[in-house]
């Protein structure tokens, strides 16, 4: 049972605060570190992995300092976001080298390659690998010493859906085995599919923590704004405002559309098509106007 403790950690680069007073505990199972691009996820993961000193605060693994402590890597497996990985080696040579650096041999390397199902391409040069294959070989190199903590920085970036599913299955299995698995992502759906527990980082701050469903509800229960065009905007507006799921409607004459604020997301999505059908109105455009991740995250911070 491995627990990673982040205690009042901040990190700044000159005048820029990348991570701002974050405290969290990462325990066994799969945890998703969620946040928009530039939120400070990579900086935080680098501090968790001992590649960056916190400006203040401490990062400990089962009570042991992570920064400047090489011994800690007996327990940590790291899958970095960056692509570079000794491209002149074959996949097998790369994983064997990683095993040797842990004082292990070919056997451990072969087992790790089998775990990520890369034996079929193990004798090809890494430079010829696709993004997904690289990611799997990186995984193998991180798993070679059977670590109890696995840190993955944006592991699904650039992977096709099939590769994504495979990696998700693998990480799920690792979590079920009792390992502590932490991965970062800026894509809500990825985190939703994989992690029961999530930590949300926005603009360097710890915005939310806990069960995914609770945070998802927070996200979905926020007021949603929609831009809607229909065959009869005013009739549709009149019908919708009568329903409690809608808190405000503006007729945007310039756009020739309705701007609607819905306070009950679930109910509104059911009411809208029903009302339109009952009144014989055709819906031409229904588009969420504030669905960017940033707006979702900003709402979380305010919540």
């Amino acid at each position, binding site marked *: 049972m491995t627990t990673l403790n982040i205690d009042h950690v901040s990190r700044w680069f000159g005048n820029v605060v990348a991570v701002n007073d974050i405290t969290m505990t990462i325990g066994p199972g799969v945890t998703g570190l969620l946040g928009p691009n530039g939120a*400070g996820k*990579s900086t935080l993961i680098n501090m968790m992995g001992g*590649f960056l000193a916190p400006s203040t605060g401490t990062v400990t693994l089962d009570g042991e300092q992570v920064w400047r402590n090489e011994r800690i890597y007996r327990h940590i497996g790291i899958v*970095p976001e960056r692509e570079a990985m000794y491209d*002149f080696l074959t996949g097998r040579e790369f994983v064997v080298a990683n095993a040797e650096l842990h004082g292990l041999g070919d056997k451990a390397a072969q087992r790790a390659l089998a775990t990520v199902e890369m034996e079929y391409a193990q004798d090809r040069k890494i430079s010829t690998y696709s993004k997904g294959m690289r990611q799997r070989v990186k995984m193998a190199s991180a798993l070679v010493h059977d670590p109890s903590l696995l840190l993955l920085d944006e592991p699904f970036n650039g992977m096709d859906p099939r590769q994504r599913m495979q990696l998700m299955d693998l990480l799920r299995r690792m979590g079920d085995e009792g390992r502590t698995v932490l991965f970062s992502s800026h894509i809500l759906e990825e985190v939703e599919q994989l992690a029961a527990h999530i930590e949300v980082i926005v603009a360097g701050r710890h915005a939310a923590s806990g069960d995914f469903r609770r945070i998802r509800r927070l996200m979905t229960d926020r007021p949603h704004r929609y831009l809607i065009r229909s065959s009869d905007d005013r009739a549709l507006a009149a019908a919708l405002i009568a329903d409690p799921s809608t808190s405000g409607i503006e007729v945007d004459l310039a756009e020739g559309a309705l701007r609607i604020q819905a306070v009950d997301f679930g109910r509104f999505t059911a009411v809208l098509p029903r009302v339109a059908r009952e009144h014989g109105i055709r819906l031409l455009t229904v588009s969420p106007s504030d669905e960017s991740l940033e707006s979702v995250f900003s709402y979380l911070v305010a919540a």
Partner: protein
Amino acid sequence: MYDPTVARLTYRGLLGRRRALILCALPVLLIVISAAVRGFTGADDQVASDVLGGFALATMVPIIGVIAGTGAIGPEIDDGSVVYLLAKPLKRPTIIFTKLIVAIAVTMAFSAVPTFIAGLILNGNGQQIAVAYTVAALVASIAYAALFLLLGTVTRHAVVFGLVYALVWEALFGSLVSGARTLSVQQWALAVGHKVTGGDLVTSDVGLPTATVLLIGVTVLATWYAGQRLRSLTLAGEE
């Protein structure tokens, strides 16, 4: 202190096709020049000393040192692949020491060996000139490798700074300002070379005791500091 896996990865990286071609270019040029000089002027001790001192030791050895020393670690730090070495229960000084050994071996192989061959071609090792410059190149290889390895951990522009040091400081200032000659790996190496020949064909502005102390001091200090640099090397995020 020495890790064979780190060494293997470093050798493979250093002797990749493109870098190996660059490493071979100068030694081949030295041997071609030596053969041409021998063909035109015959075996002349002074000419042999001029070619080996002016081109081999003053230009080729430091440039090979820059390529091998910075190339042993710089590219891995630049592209981030060094993370695969750092994320291991491996002491950082062990990584540096191993890379230093590799950089020294490569610098020696690509500079001292061709220097000896060129010396044999130029005057058949008359007055021990080939041996003297080979010993000087071997000694210089150690100090250059350590200095430029350190440079590789300090700056992303290690090759540029290395070349500026090798060509501007050692070659240009060294020939204009006498004080600069005292702080020159080339002069320290020449002092050792002078000891080998004993004659006036290989001379140095620095005495052997001073040169020995400076060579050892610079090598040890640079290696130690490179280890410290790697211990506190931070891999900033891509954000």
